[in-house]
Structures are given as C-alpha cells and as structure tokens.
C-alpha cells in the first residue's frame, strides 16, 4: 500500500539497470549454444558414453541469458515479445531449450541437447541478423492480448516440433548405429529407440494441440484483410495438415520406425526453412 503507483514494477526497474541490451543477452545465449554444439561434437566422437551434464549445464546457462533477453524486450516494450521475426525466433528457441531442460531431468534424454544445439546455434545466429528485428513503431498494436496468445501458442508448438525433430535425429543416429553394428550403438548411454519414438510421438501431440489452439484463436483476431488469402495463413494450414498426418500415422501404426523419424525431422526442416519467407510474404504477419 505504501508503494507509489507511479513507481515502475520492481522487475522492470531491475532489468532497466542491466548494462546489456536484450540483443546482447541473446548474443551471449547464442555463444553458449555454440559452445554446446562444439561440446556435442565431442560427445558424438566419444560415442555418447558419458552423461551429458556439461551440455545440460551449458544449455541451462544459455536459457538464463535467453530468458533475460526476452524479459528485457517484453518489459521495455510492455508487450509479449512475439511481434517480429527476431522475437518469434527467440520464442521458438526458448521453447525448445526450456522443454529440453525439463526432459533432460531424465539422464538418458539429456543427449537430446547434443542434437538440438546445432539447430539452436544456427537459428540463433540467423535471428541476430539486423533486418529481422526492425525498430518497433511508437505504439504497437497489442490487439487485446489475443494476438499475443495466438502467436505464443503457435511458437510454442514449433518449439515442441523442434524438440521432436531433435529426438528424431537422435533416433536416426541410434537406429543407424544398431543397424550397421556400430559399437557406439551398444556403448552409448542413449535411451532405447522405441522409447525415443514414444517421446517424439508425445512431443508431436503436444505441438499439434498447441498449434491447433493457436490457429483456432485466429477467429478472435481483428480482421484487417482476408485471412485465408494470406500466405502465412495458408502456410500454417499446410503445416497443420502435415503434423495432423504425422500424428495420425503415429496413432495408427503405433511405431513408425525410421521413416517416421525422417518425416518428423523433414517436417521441422520445412518449417524452419519456410517460416521466415512466408512471414515476409504475409500482409498480416510481416
């Protein structure tokens, strides 16, 4: 009661006094993703025989910087930071790392980080390109919170698909090693392939539910132009259909094996490679 109503919220005050900008904090996170990637090569060469606690620690430290970057951006603009390509990319990467740290509580799933870090580093470097982060307008349209929720759900979904793709890469590595009798298959501490497939399936379902909810929220958004003729909307529906097919495939056959894993990795690569392009083509999302 004694606190002045004019005083900014404590968290904002603290973040304003942090000497680095949000982009610099994100740069630190990307550097750690890079270190994690290099360490992942070491883990790979050692045949995944050692618990990847170091990698887990590196990604946890990166997430701290990543979270500060997002929080600083959010507090400085007083909105959820999902309004341009830079912010959207930050959100997707943050989801992947946060979900990984959660799953990494189980020792054998910590190796997911080794498969996720190259993508985290590559996409992180790409996100740092200045043209992806144009200066914000004087008064961003917040759209009553629905736009933020829509964007957040969709980006969380892509995060889940991303981690699923990392799981797919891990599955394919282990499957290949088992198939071709590589010693690494048996000496590694990676989980059995059918458990990896179970994990991939669950991540796909979570991602699909989030994507469906995010897309369904489109109905609540202010209409500026015809939604269905927008390139990004059409692309999103295509992505939704692709992941629906994957979820149905997994549900029907119980185990999809190598082809399923390839499709999961391929689908996310498609999302990754076309996400920015369709955004730039979209009137609604640019």
């Amino acid at each position, binding site marked *: 009661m004694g606190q002045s109503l004019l005083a900014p919220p404590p968290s904002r005050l603290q973040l304003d006094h942090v000497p680095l900008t949000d982009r610099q904090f994100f740069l630190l996170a990307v550097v750690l993703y890079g270190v994690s990637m290099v360490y992942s090569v070491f883990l790979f060469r050692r045949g995944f025989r050692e618990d990847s606690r170091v990698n887990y620690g590196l990604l946890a430290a990166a997430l701290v910087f990543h979270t500060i970057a997002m929080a600083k951006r959010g507090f400085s603009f007083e909105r959820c930071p999902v309004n341009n390509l830079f912010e959207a990319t930050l959100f997707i990467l943050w989801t992947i790392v946060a979900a990984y740290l959660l799953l990494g509580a189980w020792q054998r799933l910590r190796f997911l980080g080794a498969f996720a870090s190259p993508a985290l580093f590559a996409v992180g470097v790409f996100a740092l390109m200045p043209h992806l982060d144009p200066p914000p307008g004087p008064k961003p349209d917040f759209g009553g919170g629905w736009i933020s929720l829509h964007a957040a759900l969709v980006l969380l979904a892509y995060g889940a698909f991303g981690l699923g793709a990392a799981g797919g890469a891990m599955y394919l590595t*282990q499957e290949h090693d*088992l*198939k071709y*009798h590589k*010693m690494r*298959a*048996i*000496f590694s501490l990676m*989980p*059995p*392939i*059918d*458990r990896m497939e*179970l994990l991939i399936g669950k991540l796909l379902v979570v991602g699909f539910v989030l994507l469906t909810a995010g897309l369904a929220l489109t109905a609540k958004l202010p209409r500026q132009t015809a939604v269905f003729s927008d390139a990004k909307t059409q692309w999103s529906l295509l992505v939704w259909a692709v992941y629906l097919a994957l979820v149905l495939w997994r549900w029907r*056959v*119980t*185990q*999809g*094996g*190598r*082809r399923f894993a390839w499709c999961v990795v391929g689908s996310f690569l498609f999302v990754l490679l076309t996400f920015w392009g369709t955004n730039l083509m979209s009137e609604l999302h640019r």
Partner: protein
Amino acid sequence: MPLLCVGLSHHTSPVEVRERFAFAEAAVPAVLQALRESGVVDEAVVLSTCNRVEIYAAMGGDARLALASLRGFFLKHHNATGTLDKELYALSEPQSIEHLFKVASGLDSMVLGETEILGQLKSAYDVARRGGHTGARLNKTFQRAFNVAKHIRTETSIQRGSVSVANVAVELAEKIFSALHDRQVMVLGAGDTSEKVARALLSRGAHSILVSNRSFDRAEALAKELAGRAVHFDDWAREFERVDIVISSTSAPHYVLDRKKLEPLMRARRNRPLLLVDIAVPRDIEPECNFLDDVYLYNIDDLQAIADDYLKQRQDEIAECERIIREKAAALLGPKSRPDLQGGGLAFGHK
C-alpha cells in the same frame, strides 16, 4: 596384527587342483573353528569358490612364521603330500590387502570385472563374523574392501558392459526395446547357447518364450524348463507376428529365414522392431534380412566382437583400478605401509 592370505586361484592352478583344495560350504565354520583352536590365527575368513580357495587371517608375531603355519594348516587340512610351491601363494601386508581389494573388485576374477565374487566374499565374511571368527582387524579390512569395490565400480568402467555373448544379446535388446517385460522371445533350435540367451532375456524380464525345434520333444523339454511354450517347427512362422526377439541356433545347413520369407512377416508386424540373434554356424538367417526396415540382425561374430570390445575396455581400466587399490591399501595401513619403515611385505608363490 598383520593381514595374511594363503590360497590358490585360477591364475595358479587348474580346476583339478582347485576342486581338490576347495572347502565345502557346510564345512567352512568347522574349518574356521579348527584354525583358531590350533592357535595358528586370531581371526580368519575362508573364501572358497569355483575359481579360488583362500584363507584370510590376522595373527600376531612374525609374519614369515605365521604364513608358514597357515600354509601348513592349508596343506594338512587337505592331506596334501607335496608343498604346492607353484600353486599356493602366501601374502603378507601390503600385498595381502591389495590382493583382497582386487578380489573384491573383480580384478582377480576369471571374467575381469565380474561382480559375483563380491557377493561370495561378503557371504564368506558373514559366515566368519557370525561364528565369532573375525575381530577388529578383519572387520575393518573387509569393510574397507567392500567400499573399495563400490568405489571402483562407480569411478571406473571395469564392470561396464557384458563380456558374454548371452548378455550382449540382452544388452542389444535393451537398446531397442524400452522394457523387456512385454516382449515375446522365440528360440529356433534348442541348443545350449540359445538356451543361455533365452535365460538371460528371461532374467531381465522378457515376457515369455516360444521354443521351436525340429525335434518337438526337445522343444517341449526346453520350453518346460523356461516356462515357455513349444511350437512345431513347421508352424513357427505363424507365431512370428507377435514375436519381438528371435534367437536362432538350428543345425540346418541352409538359411531357415531369408529376406523373401521375412518381408511379408514384417508387413504383418506393422513396423514393430525385430531383433534377430543368429548364433548358428552355418548361419540360419540370410544377412540380407538386416536391410529390411525395423530389422536388427546380429550373428555370433557380431556379438563376440561386442563382448571382446567390452573386455578390452575393462582391460584398459586395470591400471587405474590398481592405482586406486594401492592408494586405498596405503591409506588403510597408514605409515607402516611405507617400505622404508617396514622393510616391505612378503609374497611367496605365484598369484
């Protein structure tokens, strides 16, 4: 009061000698009693397994004389006429303590790094302790030996992996299937090795075993032993849809399972992974089967190569384990372990 050790093991003697000098499990308490009543030792533990027969003892006085008395007791108890100079070893500190630590850690075992010996050592110690044949010296040393074994197990790779073909097959299965408890195993050909693999899978929780053999009687007999079900050899393909792991060791001169036969069977299995373990010579399963999706085929050479690699890894760890053991033994003995203060230990015979 120094720790002494007299005994023989697979390193120094063949099985004919070891079995002659073994102490029957039921006779061990009486041996311990006789040892102490003879005044040869103050404390004693007798370890008698198929690969070693050893007496660990603590006694006062001169170590050289004490070892000679203990050696005499050992020979006299078994009515040995010779001196067994080549077979029998006699160790005093610090070699006796380092030897005990090596035995506990599986470093002195026939299968390097095996853990069964630790259980046997604990059991031998327990028999002696319950009979009142151990005191402060042996209690402390044996407890330390158990701790060293645990330390070595957790800090090195000496016990990592499987060095037997049967256990390698189980490890492979566990790299494919997250749990074996709902997995169906099929044994084609009721040979000894396939039985070992099947037993290893069962011990790790495999759901059930189907046994198929040209001689149905033999299949039935093995199925009964494994609490499984026998299947006529002409019908095994009908059961294939529900099977996850196949162990094949028939004596057929041709392939029992080839790619052409497996392809439709895999379609019926709807992409479920299948582990094929072919331990037959000549091989039962066409190598081409491995190129089918979701099929993982390993033959006897593949399994042996993995087991050999594990063994090599274990051998690479020996130096590190021995360093730990020397350190721990020195820590237990304190300043008296230093040769400049003690004049060194006694070690007779081979080890």
